[in-house]
């Protein structure tokens, strides 16, 4: 058995969740984060755990992982908040997807049929039923879908909670420590290089986001991950103007609105292919606020608290990359795209079981790192 701690590269929600699950299993583990914990995609997330509303055609396999994770969320949070003593503002009121005009309704109907086909727990609502649930929504609303078993939380509070819980369990988190390189000998990880220091390691989990630049990795472990930019804006709702549910639209400027218990309201998020750019732009704020105003007219009265842009790590098929690699002792949990918060409990558990207890899972077959190797050769037609 290895005597050195299991090393996790990346202190986002995934790295921290894996560390937490390993610690719960009594394993020695250490987290290395090049900036500060949650400073990447995690900290920019709106914190929705909404598998039913997020599922799209062709993502049936991902749905299984989503549902496994969602069902674990209430106990994951209970345990975490107990150990850390820090609230994550976890809310269980469910989510609403609403149509603003009849074109939206056609889309809504199409999604609803699909959700039913998948056996998901969803209710189709009339405009009156939508406003009974959420009386502040616009009278333009022509219908909705309610998903009862969906949750949302404050992602930054979640990170803080994980950090405190890990500290309570004596798991070291090295912030501002970049793992420069990995040493691999005879197909096996032997050490990591942090600054000038070479540290012996037998087991390393790469849970980094958009930046996977670690020297020493074999070429086949450079996965096709690209940043997908997302901008959000946060408002402060007065007590009389607070939403109860997470609300999502599928209008031309689609948005979601996520209420916090202190009255803050997060409006997100754009999807932009802009490389590593994290500028907050007027056009995106306009789209977000316009989209929010269409369904919740009172937003125009609220003070702006902050706005930000983050980068989601997306693989070419938008599915996570999970499990063992061709190198012994080296594991990956990457490419969570828009679903890092949602997937944290299940990925933490699966990876901890794999690395800590050598327990395999069929998910490592479906979402395994191998799938990118042969595929990248077949280029398109063009005679």
């Amino acid at each position, binding site marked *: 058995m290895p005597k050195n701690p299991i090393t996790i590269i990346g202190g986002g929600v995934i790295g921290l969740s894996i560390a937490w699950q390993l610690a719960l299993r009594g394993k020695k583990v250490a987290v290395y984060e090049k900036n500060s914990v949650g400073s990447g995609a995690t900290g920019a997330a709106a914190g929705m755990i909404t598998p039913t509303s997020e599922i799209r055609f062709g993502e049936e396999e991902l749905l299984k992982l989503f549902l496994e994770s969602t069902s674990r969320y209430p106990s994951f949070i209970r345990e975490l908040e107990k150990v850390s003593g820090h609230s994550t503002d976890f809310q269980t009121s469910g989510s609403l997807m609403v149509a603003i005009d009849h074109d939206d309704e056609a889309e809504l109907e199409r999604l609803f049929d699909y959700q039913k086909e998948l056996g998901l727990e969803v209710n189709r609502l009339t405009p009156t039923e939508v406003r009974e649930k959420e009386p502040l929504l616009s009278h333009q609303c022509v219908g909705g879908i309610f998903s009862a078993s969906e949750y949302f939380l404050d992602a930054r509070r979640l990170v803080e909670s994980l950090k405190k819980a890990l500290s309570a369990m004596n798991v070291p988190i090295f912030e501002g420590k970049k793992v420069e390189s990995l040493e691999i000998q005879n197909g096996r990880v032997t050490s990591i290089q942090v600054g000038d220091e070479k540290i012996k390691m037998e087991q390393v989990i790469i849970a980094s986001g958009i930046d996977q630049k670690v020297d020493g990795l074999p070429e086949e472990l450079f996965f*096709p991950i690209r940043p997908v930019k997302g901008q959000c804006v946060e408002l402060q709702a007065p007590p009389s103007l607070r939403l109860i549910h997470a609300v999502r639209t599928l209008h031309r400027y689609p948005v979601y609105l996520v209420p916090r218990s202190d009255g803050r309201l997060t409006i997100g998020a754009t999807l932009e292919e802009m490389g590593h750019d994290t500028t907050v732009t007027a056009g995106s704020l306009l789209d977000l606020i316009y989209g929010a105003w269409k369904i919740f007219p009172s937003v125009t009265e609220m003070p702006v608290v902050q706005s930000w842009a983050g980068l989601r790590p997306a693989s070419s098929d938008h599915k996570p990359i999970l499990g063992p690699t061709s190198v012994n002792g080296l594991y990956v949990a990457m490419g969570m795209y828009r679903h890092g918060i949602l997937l944290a409990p299940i990925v933490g558990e699966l990876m901890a079981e794999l690395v800590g207890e050598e327990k395999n899972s069929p998910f490592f077959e479906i979402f395994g790192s191998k799938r990118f190797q042969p595929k990248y050769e077949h280029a398109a*037609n*063009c005679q």
Partner: protein
Amino acid sequence: MLQIANKTFKSRLLLGTAGYPNLQVLEEALSASGCEVTTVAIRRINLVEDQTEGILPLLKKGNYFLLPNTAGCYTAKEAVLTAKLAREALNTNWVKLEVIGDSYSLYPDSEELLKAATELISEGFVVLPYCNDDPVVCKKLVDRGCPAVMPLGAPIGSGQGIRNPNNLELIRKQVSVPIIVDAGVGCASHVAFAMELGCDGVLMNTAIARARDPVKMALAMKNAIEAGRLSFEAGRIPEKKFATPSTPDRGKINYRR
């Protein structure tokens, strides 16, 4: 063969690259469609950074002919600037010129479009204009030097199909350059119909990108465009009011002596 300006294309299908579920589906759909020309919205992609992953690297790797578009431009000035940026960034003087007149219908602003087309052509661009299905505007665009016209079949992303086939037929009579129906188709029969009207190609995006199975829809579109073109070339029979039997009435077995 579809000939536009100095280029010849085997495929008469042109595809937009936005709104696909993910890059892998995009790659497979493009491949299934057999298309050679793909459009990219200049405002939607980062041209500054040298990316290894993303839409542009994927299109370059697949050797697709890149046609930058000026989607989201509302004035001639904006469109001209965007076209020039595209020329610098992508090293092409081809542009799909879009100048939108109204954000609800996304209909072209013909006045601004003509202005932008004239300016870009004088600067050496190959301008493929997204335009109304208006024979007069199409004629003017050709007179200014556009090597093809791209009238809409219906509003962008609406999937309504060819709303005014009569106009497309009129345009066919008015111009001799290729007509590419740009926008509005929703399914394979729309595409075949456009081709049967004598159009030379169809440019689409949403119909494939947002289909439940984009790769299968791409294949359907490929077959439809080929079937529609063959049907046009084969020369259809005239429409008649009454039935004409395909076999002669005489010589039935009952009447044999």
